[in-house]
């Protein structure tokens, strides 16, 4: 694996399977009497959150703590210094504190890249969501969840070859969609992005995915359907005429869910807009694996932290 996890595209198929298999082993830790491993004892993991995301921060925090790392939560939001200065200065502070891994969430696309490549810090950088760019650990936990449901015997060692995954919603602004498109393609799945044309990025035809403007077309063959959150403010920017029309054309309601194959699962990265992109009864149905995604998130993030900083890091060299 590369030193940092900045994009789902950084992972080869073997890397991705290694993360998923490691996560599979680590999933068991949550069921044990002592939910802690000594592996990252003495390592420092900094959660650097420039954007509020309690869910993601808690997930990373739990992951790091279960590996016995020292966790420092740094919420840079509301800092009075200019944003640019604060990223560099914060990075240098973290460097001085000896951060082995920096988990960064930032409203600016590419901020994790800057942190990893500008020479401000030596630690491994994990992208916990940057702007409208990527959210690779979310894609990993989604792939993990799909594999455990759609793979044979829990999916260990397997990819997602031949599985049909439909991702629906605001692809243009979604870091989850970007990371999933890259990772699921790497794992051999057939990805279909479904959105109104206004919410697909220019150049999407060059992505390794199919695209469609019509949700109903891809339901019958889907093994997994992932509904993306639609920000209500998109409505005012004329991406679509009204919430009602969006919901009617691109929302997953019971009728649409019933057209999915028997084994298909319904996913959502959260937080959900019930009644907008997903019906309340769909979210709570037996096909919904949304709560499981959260559980899997901790195991996947443990795996990522372990694989990035559990062994020799660059200051230690190889024995």
């Amino acid at each position, binding site marked *: 694996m590369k030193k940092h996890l900045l994009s789902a595209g950084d992972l080869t198929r073997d890397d991705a399977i*290694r993360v998923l*298999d*490691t996560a599979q*082993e*680590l999933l*068991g830790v949550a069921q*044990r*009497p*002592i939910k*802690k*491993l*000594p*592996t990252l004892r003495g390592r420092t993991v900094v959660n650097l959150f420039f954007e509020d995301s309690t869910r993601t921060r808690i997930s990373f925090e739990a992951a790091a703590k279960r*590996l016995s790392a020292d966790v420092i939560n740094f919420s840079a939001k509301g800092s009075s210094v200019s944003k640019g200065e604060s990223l560099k200065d914060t990075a240098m502070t973290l460097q001085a504190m000896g951060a082995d891994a920096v988990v960064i969430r930032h409203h600016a696309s590419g901020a994790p890249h800057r942190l990893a490549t500008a020479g401000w810090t030596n630690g491994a950088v994990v992208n916990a969501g940057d702007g409208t760019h990527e959210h690779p650990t979310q894609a990993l936990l989604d792939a993990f969840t799909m594999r455990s449901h759609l793979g044979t015997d829990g999916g*260990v060692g397997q990819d997602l070859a031949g599985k049909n995954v439909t991702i629906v919603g605001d692809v243009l602004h979604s870091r989850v969609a970007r990371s999933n498109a890259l990772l699921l393609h790497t794992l051999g799945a057939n990805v279909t992005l479904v959105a109104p044309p206004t919410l697909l990025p220019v150049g999407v035809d060059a992505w390794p995915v199919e695209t469609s403007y019509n949700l109903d077309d891809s339901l019958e063959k889907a093994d997994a359907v992932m509904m993306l959150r639609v920000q209500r403010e998109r409505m005012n920017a004329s991406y679509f005429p009204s919430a009602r029309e969006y919901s009617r054309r691109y929302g997953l309601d019971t009728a649409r869910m019933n057209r999915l194959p028997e084994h298909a699962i319904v996913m959502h990265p959260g937080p959900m807009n019930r009644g907008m992109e997903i019906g309340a009864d769909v979210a709570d149905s037996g096909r919904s694996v949304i709560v499981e995604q959260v559980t899997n998130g901790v195991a996947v993030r443990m795996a990522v932290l*372990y*694989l*990035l*900083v*559990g*062994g*020799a*890091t660059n200051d*230690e060299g*190889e*024995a």
Partner: protein
Amino acid sequence: MVHPADGPDAVPGPVLPPSDETSVRTVLDDGEIHRALTRITHEILERNHGSAEVVLLGIPRRGVPLARRIARRMGEVEGREIHAGALDVTMYRDDLRMKPARPLEHTEMPDDVDDKIVVLVDDVLMSGRTIRAALDALGDLGRPRAVQLAVLIDRGHRELPIRADYVGKNLPTALTEKVRVQLTEVDEVDDSVSIVGSSGGGAA
């Protein structure tokens, strides 16, 4: 890959090609391995008054098939099906920072270990560091009444105060030598234990 002495105690076989400067001396063949495991099985049963309280846990990778073989023989003697588990100790190793993070092996507990007699099974005992890690791992899974250790080979060179309760063969070796264990389940060749290294005792 040939690991240094503080790495895993056994050397995976097929990766190391024999060369002119390396001697390979077979010390146990498949029949002898079979008999050693049978003896260990009986010793475990004798010492623990049967299998009722015993939980067998193999340490990946080669300890796991060994534990399974012992479980099978034990089951034959006891007239019931006995399953061995697997206990991966990677996350508890004290040498994690010496090389890039390695993949985890599967951990599988056949039973609750609380108040049981856990018999750890591994292929080669050397420094004792793997067993130290296994004891820590076990401690996080429950509280066994006792922990015992069965190994196919004890080659000496201990670095920690750890000893085996059941030993297939004591094999005094030089540190320059490597002990290579091959098992059908893992290596897809006939079982064997051999010493790989300079036969004259000098460094190759």
